[in-house]
């Protein structure tokens, strides 16, 4: 089989971009026809092939050391890297945390929030990923295509994937370009 391989993953996003991907309805069969859908959060295979894929898609920005690893791995294993959605492209909603900083955000979430048990603490297991400032993917690894939208329209995702699967450069403009 020599169909181009596509893999995707989500990091600091809300899964909405992948929902929008599914929202392309029967056109997803067209994608399957054109490409070999490999590891994605919604298929069984969870890691992009070690041998590499043609197109890697990342939803979400990068807000901790684990996200960084995923981004680096996807970049290393993909010929073309696509940042999908506003969080991946700009930082998005999670980037609002950058206004107060990591410390204050953790304290608010684990200590101060009304839903916490009295005496709750910020988790400090050394196994846990370390929080960082929230960044767009292109701030951490080089990105070939930024596909904004919160989430991007199914039409936009279909356009990008089908163009890439057919070896063309997707043009994201006019009706296909929106940041919300």
């Amino acid at each position, binding site marked *: 089989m020599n169909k181009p391989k596509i893999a995707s993953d989500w990091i600091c996003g809300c899964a909405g971009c992948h929902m929008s991907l599914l929202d392309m309805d029967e056109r997803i069969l067209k994608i399957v026809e054109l490409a070999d859908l490999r590891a994605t959060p919604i298929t069984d295979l969870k890691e992009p092939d070690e041998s590499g894929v043609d197109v890697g898609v990342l939803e979400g920005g990068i807000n901790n050391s684990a996200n960084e690893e995923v981004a680096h791995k996807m970049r290393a294993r993909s010929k073309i890297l696509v940042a999908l959605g506003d969080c991946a492209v700009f930082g*998005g909603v999670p980037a*609002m945390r950058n206004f107060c900083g990591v410390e204050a955000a953790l304290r608010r979430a684990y200590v101060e929030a009304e839903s916490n048990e009295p005496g709750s603490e910020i988790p400090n297991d050394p196994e846990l990923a370390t929080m960082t*400032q929230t960044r767009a993917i292109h*701030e951490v690894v080089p990105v070939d295509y930024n596909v904004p939208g919160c989430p991007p329209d199914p039409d936009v995702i279909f356009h990008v994937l089908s163009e890439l699967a057919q070896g063309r450069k997707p043009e994201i403009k006019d009706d296909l370009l929106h940041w919300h």
Partner: protein
Amino acid sequence: MVQITINNKQIDVPEGTTVLRAAEMAGIQIPKLCEHKELTPYGGCRLCIVEVQGVRVPMASCTLPVNNGMVVNTETEAIKKSRKFILSMLFSERNHFCPFCQVSGGDCELQNAAYHEEMTHWPIQPGWNDFPVDTSHPYFVLDNNRCILCRRCVRACAEMAGNFTLSVAERGAKSMIVADTDVPLGDSTCIKCGSCVQVCPTGALIDRTSAYQGHDEKMTEIKSVCVGCSVGCSINILVRDNRIVRIEGDWEGSVNHGVLCEHGRYDPTTEARKRITTPMMKKNGKLEPVSWEDALNAVKDKLQPLAGNKNGIAALASTRLNAETLTAFKDLFESKIQSGMVTSIEEGVPSSAVMKFSEKQGEFEGKLDMLRSADAVMCVGANIGRSHMVAGFLFKRNLNKGTRFINIDPEESELDELANISLKAKPGSDLALIKGMQAVIHKEGLERSSLTITNADEWIAQAVSASGISAEQIAQAARILAHSVTPVILFGKGVTAQRDEKIVEALYQLAVQIGAIDQERSSLLSIKGEANSLSAALMGLDQPFKLDGQKVTYVAVGDDYVSKYLVEKAAKSAYLVVQASYESKLTENADVVLPVSIWAEQEGHYVNLDGRAQKTAKAISAPENVRDNLDVLNDLAKRMNLALDTDWQTAIRGRKSSVSLN
């Protein structure tokens, strides 16, 4: 004319045209942000850069005047690259979270510009600094996180409203839009005209009522006229699902050129009065809903026997009603029923003295436009800071450029601070004061056209003793007027309420004396009252309202506000019929209430204070059981076997007008 070539297109444009405008004339749009056609070019955002042959660096086209033979290119690769860079810098400075911004998706000029350059991301990420959000203003929010410092708001506040509230504090990256000395907008000198919001290209100024109510493309835009006062500003009503979402000043408006005041922009969308949606009649001391049939028949039964009886019915109409309705109203009650007490709710307070003087003098008033170029303005008893505000904007915007302002009004107001001279004359002393000014000008030989003044010193002495103002101050005010080249005298209710045409005459003489009135022009103008004040006056609906044993009082209030004074006066009625849109003390006291449409639910004509006949449009539909003001009168007449005249154009020509009508 100068010839210029833009993108290989040759075009001749008038000298002094900017390259940006010249391109527009040639049908070429240059991306821009800080530039706005009604504001002075500022050249701050640099997005409008173009390549000029022979010039090494890109030039901002909004401030660049054309030169003969200039060759300009707007879409070279280098220019496009620079534009993208400029936009990148703008996005990196503040925090733009488009997914939850009310203007994202069509109504943001910044985002549209980025889309135009096909930007899929920000090459330079923002620094995530938190910028202040000011939520203290009743009508809008200022979110500095979305501000691009284009200063359109600052310029609009100064150049449109003449209010100078907004400015930029600090410099460079620390620059911030602030009100006054960096006080919350809600505590500032802002007069709530909303001009800043209308011109803001981004989502930084958020209109409280229309935000998130849909994009502009989802709205139907209806051109109409504000009926808030007699200035008659042109408006665009943005409607969605039969609801007024927002009102904007019409840039094409001949009176206002886009600007509006608080009343015109926000009153309709913040209306709090309760709508009347069914006809009602008083039964056992309580108003009960009834059918139109019953209500109108009851009124007919009351009116019909009183026809021909001069003292049978008192009829009052609001001057916020359109001219068609006022004409029918006058025809029904004055011509057909022959009542002797048919007038307007304003009772001619803002107009009767003016009308009396015009009977003698003919058209003596000027046009609003002259306020734009006035180098001195004297307001007498006209608080243009509270009503007729746009008339004030027309010259307030020039106060920083040397226009002098004299305010004569016993009432304290914020105008006092703006005025070069503020005279607090004792009430009732206007005539003496104006004559005193005439005398000073005469005595000091400053007249452009001389008046017969027998004893100048005596007039001055009388002015001083009557008004309580020093001779020196009177002289100062007089000198300002006499020395100016394009003086304008505005007067309002403070003068006309005295119902004394002698004061109007004195103002006229003063205007002639200082050259404000000559063969070519008249720069004397009264601001009148409500939207159709002048129409009503021209129809003769301007006598004082007196109840004198009438059996029925009919008040056509329409959507007007009801004063306590009117409620008290009408309370003495034997039988009260009220035609109104909103509940009030007056409708509470009524025996019959007829629910009618508001201004935006009907079309009709208004004659503004300087004689422009303008038409309002029907923008929304009235509630189910509510009827048009004119329909109600027509139906009532039909039940009495009468047909009403609605030829308003003839009706307003029944009397000599004080302004030319057009």
